[in-house]
């Protein structure tokens, strides 16, 4: 481990002397003795790099070997292809070893991509302004709720029951913390938001509504008229950013705040973290938005540059009155997203979204043709993910599929949907693999 600490004993001696101390211990003379004495070591011997690599390789091998399974898992995190250029540029250490660009002139690299990222997210979502990231899609939606509370000063919020169940848990936690009242809006027989129910809950007391599209069941919500129904209350929408390659963006439906899980944009699943919270809003709400923002400005000679701006919203200036407590965010994941969207570009994002749509629909069609299987909500439009009614309990199905090398999807029984399996498709799944899953489903459901 000494490779990380340059000082030699000579260096230490010389420095102690300069300070006027005789020993390292004296550097800690201000810590009460009883505290120092109580210290108990961890019982860990140092490891060399080779040993730690062997150890971590061993631990990793106690997981499944991802190369041996074909995965149809989704439910908020998706296994998209990560372009080689993204991986490569993420390793440029001028980016990953820097911190929040407090000193703009020495951080133009970070500030420039942040500005690009904000532009791309606005374009995707059809919104006016975006920040440079939140912790994840779930907490971003919770922060949207807090922001809506701050804007409207109302404490009641409608929450779609078709939200990701974990997002709902996060929202419950944040709402409890902030003393907000939540009303759940059910979904209809098509798995879509029950707009009638929503309408019935719109009152003067309402701060906003939280909706997700595609929702947890993969179903694309129709956002039209929602904003007008809500009136003064804010429409907060959570999206799958790749779906916006083909889906009409929430901004066009009048959404006030749009958030989303950006992991899919060039970030590995990583067992669910780090994720990437996307966050955008209307211009009018800008000064209530949480998070870092990079803004364009100039120097004394008129040269264009970027700088963290509107910091008066933030905790280090506004302290208890800040729009949020967020400080360290998910910058590097946002950088990956910037690279990803830059590589795919205007044409590529649409093509990717189309490709995924085709694959998902092909698979859905094949599966629902199997005896005993059907689509749970056959009339509902979907993008990359769909719920299937299974002839036997999904848990059993999944176990048998696993033996055949498939991670067949997410069992929705624990979420109250008997014999329902949620299946996700990405561009990585080849036709052969889709057909393979269908064949395996046939076999294992006999």
């Amino acid at each position, binding site marked *: 481990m000494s490779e990380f600490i340059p000082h030699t004993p000579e260096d230490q001696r010389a420095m102690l002397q300069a300070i006027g101390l005789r020993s390292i211990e004296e550097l800690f003379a201000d810590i009460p003795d009883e505290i120092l004495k109580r210290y108990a070591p961890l019982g860990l011997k140092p490891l060399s790099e080779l040993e730690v690599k062997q150890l971590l390789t061993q631990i990793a091998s106690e*997981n499944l070997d991802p190369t041996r399974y074909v995965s149809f898992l989704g439910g908020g995190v998706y296994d998209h292809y990560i372009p080689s250029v993204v991986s490569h540029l993420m390793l440029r250490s001028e980016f990953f070893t*820097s*911190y929040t660009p407090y000193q703009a002139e020495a951080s133009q690299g970070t500030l420039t991509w942040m500005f690009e990222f904000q532009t*791309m997210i606005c374009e995707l979502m059809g919104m006016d302004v975006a920040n440079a990231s939140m912790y994840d899609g779930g907490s971003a939606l919770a922060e949207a709720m807090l922001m809506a509370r701050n804007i409207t000063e109302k404490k009641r919020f409608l929450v779609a029951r078709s939200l990701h169940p974990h997002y709902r848990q996060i929202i419950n936690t944040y709402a409890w913390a902030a003393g907000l009242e939540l009303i759940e809006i059910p979904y209809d027989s098509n798995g879509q938001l029950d707009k009638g129910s929503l309408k019935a809950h719109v009152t003067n007391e309402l701060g906003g509504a939280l909706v997700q599209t595609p929702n947890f069941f993969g179903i694309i919500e129709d956002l039209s008229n929602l904003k007008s129904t809500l009136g003064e209350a804010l429409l907060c929408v959570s999206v799958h950013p790749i779906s916006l390659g083909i889906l009409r963006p929430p901004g066009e439906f009048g959404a006030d705040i749009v958030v989303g899980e950006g992991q899919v944009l060039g970030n590995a699943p990583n067992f669910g973290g780090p994720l990437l919270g996307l966050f955008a809003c209307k211009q009018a709400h800008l000064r209530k938005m949480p998070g870092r923002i990079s803004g364009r400005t100039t120097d004394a000679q008129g040269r264009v540059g970027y700088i963290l701006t509107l910091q008066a919203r933030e905790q280090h200036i506004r302290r208890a009155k800040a729009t949020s407590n967020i400080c360290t965010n998910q910058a590097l994941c946002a950088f990956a997203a910037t690279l990803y969207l830059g590589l795919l570009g205007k044409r590529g994002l649409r093509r990717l979204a189309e490709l995924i749509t*085709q694959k998902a629909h092909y698979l859905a069609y094949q599966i629902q043709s199997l005896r005993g299987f059907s689509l749970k909500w056959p009339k509902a439009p979907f993008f990359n993910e769909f719920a299937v009614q299974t002839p036997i309990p999904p848990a059993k199905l999944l176990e048998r599929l696993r033996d055949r090398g498939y991670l067949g999807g997410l069992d929705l029984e624990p979420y109250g949907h008997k014999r329902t399996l949620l299946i996700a498709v990405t561009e990585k799944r080849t036709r052969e693999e889709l057909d393979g899953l269908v064949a395996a489903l046939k076999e294992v459901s006999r």
Partner: protein
Amino acid sequence: MRPGETIFDRGAPGRYGLSLPEPDLPSRPIEELIPKELLRRDDPELPEVSQIELVRHYTALAHINFGVDTGPYPLGSCTMKYNPRISEETARLPQFALSHPWQGETLSQGNLRLMYELGELLKKIAGLSEISLQPAAGAHGEFLGMLLIKRYFEDQGELARRRKILLPDSAHGTNPASAHIAGFEVIEIPSDARGMVDLEALRKNVDESVAGIMLTVPNTLGLFEEDILDITELIHEAGGFCYFDGANLNSIVGRARPGDFGVDIVHFNLHKTFSTPHGGGGPGAGPVAVGEKLAPYLPVPLVKQQDGRFYLEYDRPKSVGRLHAFYGNFAVLVRAYTYIRMLGDEGLRRVSENAVLNANYLKERLKPFYKLPYDRLCKHEVVFSGKGLAEGIHTLDIAKRLIDYGFHPPTVYFPLIVPEALMIEPTETVSKEELDALIDAFIQIVCEAKEHPELLKTAPHTTLVGRLDDVKAARQPVLRIPKAATRSLRSRPSSARSSYPPSEGPPAPSRPPSSLL
């Protein structure tokens, strides 16, 4: 590269940077699959660049970005230490990186083991008994800490009364912000002449309305809170909880445990103490360790072990719920675990020993030149004031001038209780030669401030852009490339001017050969 150039300035309509597979199955028109009114009409204006254009753009941007790998980065409170490359390798092992949060416990024993073992180590480092790895950053951990206190008092039926969180006026901004979002009233306790919590003032504020106190130890002045045991006792006696902001743990790791201070809740900043990269502003990780009293309230799930099998514990009826969609920033946890395992006990001790040695060395050497508001033994960082160097010279000028010397500036204007604060944290990974060079630059700047103040006021001079106008940025915010410009920029032919050297154009004929670059 030209100043201000973005990826939208490169490329041309029709170009792209990544090819996609042709559909390998029967396709139907999208309109037949998804109702037309749900479909997007106009494509988002994303860049249209070939791969080489994109790679050159971000390579050029990298060259105008300062990271730890570029040079000393003594950004106070941020612990900008060297980020071991081995951690980048271990975190990218495919069985970690490609593992899916829904793949189930059986297929995730490695992940769960790592989280469990990291949790055990962090608990020992904190001197506390239970942990959640879920928070994605320090502030997220603070928020969780506040929620735990809140749930506890709710559980005890005391919530209505326990509405105050105390914190010193030197506290980091996230502390009051976190307490506030959690619904508490924030009371600032002034610091005394030593730079520490004013015990008298504290006593005055301690009563049954106090839910807890948030402390940073050593505090943001880099000073060990000498009355820490008295403070925690005082709070406990009043029935409150003590929260420990772990941002400064680097100074005591391996030799003192917050739990032994009487602390009930600790958040770690794995991206500080345990050297996971700061990533331009994240992702980090902010695990929270607690004592037994608060353990029942931790979020779901926790990672547990039984008979050598690791599992996720969801059945926690008193839990505050959830703060993150899954289990926290797992890939960051892998890096921190790698680092701690390499250090071992001996390494942890050497971290704090050398971090504190460096800060005190710098303090002593700079003391004759800069105002030192609190002249005491410091821990991992030291706070000077930029005041009084010369007429009209501000801390910002000093910071910007340091850039010209090849250093990242320290944290400035924080903590708020020191006017014109310069908060310097060398970390243990700076070599003596580098530290001496940094000190020399600070001293040189003192001379310049007197003899050539304009040199400071107009600094930096060696960067692609000079000092940027933050007032303009905030007054007329331009926060994205204007819609119209995303397209039109691309027709400009000059956009492809190469980025090497990073100049706007060739030197004018009259300019003498330059040594820059």
